[in-house]
């Protein structure tokens, strides 16, 4: 309960800040949306950093480092330090100049004017809002996961199906409402202040989290040495030989289990005699956890050569044991060769199969309130298992071992396209267009790469250390195989600190998440009112107050959509973030050409946008809607196809169509010295 109280106090503090900022509100919708262009360099830095990194940087980077190793930092963090600031130089200052001259406040206003096309707004608006939604989704989803993880056992009888803690849906809902309230009260000014406050909070608490976790793991050296010993591949981008050998051995053992279960089912459970079963259990030396009896019996069956399956039956057995979907048409090799672990991983896994763990007595016998002992007479057995732990045991003992994966060089290199997304991110674009002075960009340009390093390096280290942390006094891994990467950071925080600190550190993670949501909420509200409502309704049709109400209603609508999407099957935070960034990156050629290429035409711009978004939709669909985190196109990141394709189509169509008039171009490309 203590962590929950700390989180609630933090949320109240935040609401207070939003209300205080509202007293500085000048009253107009312009001030509400853009703080009358009065945000200085410090607030700008905090706003930009807070919005672009956040849930993705903390929860996402830790989880991804846990899954993929230290190479994650090079994939996005260091490249962002170079490319984000480059975009500030190449795009930001030019856009600031045009915004200052022609009074644009949103990117659609700029494109409408530059391309002399009203309809480009109709095309771009849903695409931009549609791409912001997955980014909002990351925050909404992650906030629910984080609150749920640290509040396990907080209630004595409520929310039993959520491990007696706050359900994910409730955590997400509360965070969405809190952010909506302080955004509505404080507007852009309140949001900027809340953003600055929360960015400072999450950076300070992030450093404390790092220190607490590393101390609990025996210090930074001991933590890294443990990785070197248990999961050396996580310290580099290729697979260590020892990891490969360990996997092959574990996979062979798992194959025996799968074959035994299949053969035993075929023999109606009588593959072994009662005596043989007793003997198997007596001889078993592994941990008595999950389906250990089946493992014991499998050992004896293998030793006595009792399993007799055809090759095709063996392959069927692997698919069944691993809860994967049996292919309707089996490949030609199915009855000729036994599949490898790598081949097995190509078949889609039915994640819902894990629900069986809650009813199957093999896994559910210890299920209960996490504050109660399994057996009061035997306290050494520990406390009852949560549903998350029960499901974890099911996955860890039933599913095939996780295959160690190296990083592809081509994927690493083509990740460089992803930070180009800042060029089209709506909230950044608005800051560029409306900043009071171009001088205020200097601090963000320089400090951004350093801030990324301060946040990402500790997160990546914690994620990698989590792979090899063990339960104190044992050699058993603290985090079981097939663990949800999104939950790695909250799990480490909850397990490595006391209740008060755990609450405080979680507040830090939530601060990071909320500082992303707030600016995005406000930004889409501004886009809707400026680009749709006022643009088509006319400036005089709506009063200032009405514009504000419309903006708020639209924001609530988008938050509601995002919230409902968050209730569906969860994705990896990192993967979803990369898809959002990829979408914005694919539109980069448009903004670059609009600023530097006179020959860009309206038709070329339409072709660019349509190509970019069509490819994005196609690839997103092909990646099982982001369920496949390793999806590539031609062995590269999908964005590496989307950006050049959009650029090529834009150039070809522009060259084939009538160029804009010289008079019009003069406004955007003035001759020097005139």
């Amino acid at each position, binding site marked *: 309960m203590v962590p929950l109280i700390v989180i609630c106090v933090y949320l109240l503090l935040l609401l207070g800040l939003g209300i205080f900022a509202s007293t500085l509100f000048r009253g107009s919708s312009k001030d509400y949306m853009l703080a009358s262009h009065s945000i200085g360099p410090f607030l700008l830095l905090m706003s930009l950093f807070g919005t672009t990194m956040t849930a993705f940087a903390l929860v996402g980077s830790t989880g991804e480092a846990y899954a993929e190793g230290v190479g994650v930092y090079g994939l996005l*963090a260091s490249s962002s330090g*170079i490319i984000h*600031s480059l975009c500030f130089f190449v795009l930001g200052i030019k856009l600031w100049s045009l915004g200052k001259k022609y009074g644009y406040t949103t990117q659609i206003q700029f494109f409408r004017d530059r391309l002399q096309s009203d309809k480009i707004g109709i095309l771009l608006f849903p695409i931009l809002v549609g791409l912001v939604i997955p980014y909002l989704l990351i925050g909404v989803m992650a906030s629910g996961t984080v609150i749920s993880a640290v509040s396990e056992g907080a209630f004595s009888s409520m929310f039993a199906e959520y491990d007696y803690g706050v359900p994910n849906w409730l955590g997400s809902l509360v965070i969405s409402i809190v952010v909506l309230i302080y955004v509505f009260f404080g507007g852009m000014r309140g949001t900027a202040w809340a953003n600055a406050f929360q960015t400072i909070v999450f950076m300070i608490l992030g450093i404390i989290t790092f220190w607490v976790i590393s101390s609990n793991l025996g210090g930074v050296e001991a933590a890294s040495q443990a990785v070197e010993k248990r999961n050396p591949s996580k310290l580099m981008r*290729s697979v260590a030989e020892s990891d490969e050998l360990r996997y092959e051995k574990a996979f062979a053992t798992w194959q025996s289990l799968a074959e035994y279960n299949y053969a035993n089912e075929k023999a109606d459970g009588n593959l072994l005699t009662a005596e043989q079963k007793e003997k198997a259990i007596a001889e078993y030396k592994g941990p008595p956890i999950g389906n250990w009896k089946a493992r014991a019996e499998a050992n004896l069956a293998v030793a006595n050569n009792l399993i007799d399956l055809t090759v095709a039956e063996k392959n069927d057995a692997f698919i069944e044991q691993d809860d994967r979907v049996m292919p309707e048409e089996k490949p030609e090799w199915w009855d000729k060769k036994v599949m490898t672990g790598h081949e097995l991983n190509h078949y889609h896994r039915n994640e819902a199969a894990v629900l069986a763990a809650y009813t199957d007595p093999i896994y559910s016998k210890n299920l209960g309130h996490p504050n109660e002992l399994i057996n009061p007479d035997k306290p050494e057995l520990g406390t009852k298992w949560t549903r998350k732990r029960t499901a974890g045991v099911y996955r860890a003992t039933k599913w095939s071992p996780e295959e160690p994966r190296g990083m592809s060089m081509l994927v690493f290199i083509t990740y460089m396209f992803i930070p180009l997304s800042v060029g089209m991110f709506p909230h950044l674009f608005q800051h560029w267009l409306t900043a009071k002075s171009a001088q205020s960009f200097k601090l963000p340009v320089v*400090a*951004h790469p350093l801030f990324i390093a301060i946040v990402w390096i500790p997160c990546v280290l914690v994620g990698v250390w989590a792979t090899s942390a063990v339960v104190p006094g044992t050699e058993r891994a603290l985090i079981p195989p097939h663990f949800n990467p999104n939950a790695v950071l909250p799990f480490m925080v909850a397990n490595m600190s006391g209740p008060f600190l755990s609450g405080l550190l979680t507040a830090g993670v939530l601060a990071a998440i909320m500082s992303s949501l707030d600016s995005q909420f406000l930004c889409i509200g501004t886009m809707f009112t400026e680009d749709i409502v006022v643009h088509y309704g006319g400036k005089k049709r709506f009063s200032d107050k009405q514009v504000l109400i419309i903006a708020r209603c639209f924001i609530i609508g988008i938050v509601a959509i995002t919230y409902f999407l968050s209730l569906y099957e969860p994705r990896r935070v990192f993967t979803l973030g990369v898809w959002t960034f990829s979408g914005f990156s694919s539109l980069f050629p448009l903004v670059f050409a609009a600023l530097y290429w006179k020959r860009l035409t309206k038709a070329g711009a339409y072709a660019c946008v349509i190509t970019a978004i069509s490819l994005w939709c196609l690839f997103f669909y092909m990646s099982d809607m982001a369920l496949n985190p390793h999806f590539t196109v031609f062995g590269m990141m999908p964005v590496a196809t989307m950006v050049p394709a959009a650029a090529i189509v834009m150039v070809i169509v522009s060259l084939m169509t009538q160029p804009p008039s010289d008079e019009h171009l003069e406004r955007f490309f003035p001759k020097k010295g005139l």
Partner: protein
Amino acid sequence: MRYMVWLLVVALIILHQDLWYWDDRTLVWGFMPITLLWQGGISVGAAAVWFLATIFAWPTDLIEETQQEVEGGE
């Protein structure tokens, strides 16, 4: 100097592709994976290069021209 700054940016992009540390898991100072240290260095290097850029490559002409135009129009 302006060209020097842009050359440094290109150098950073090339150095970021540290393929030479691909399968090196050396722990520097006993805890820091070498590739992470290198990439962290790239971040620090980026901050330094962008600092130089704000001094030597800042588009002062464009900014002044814009301000003059805006003030002239007001």
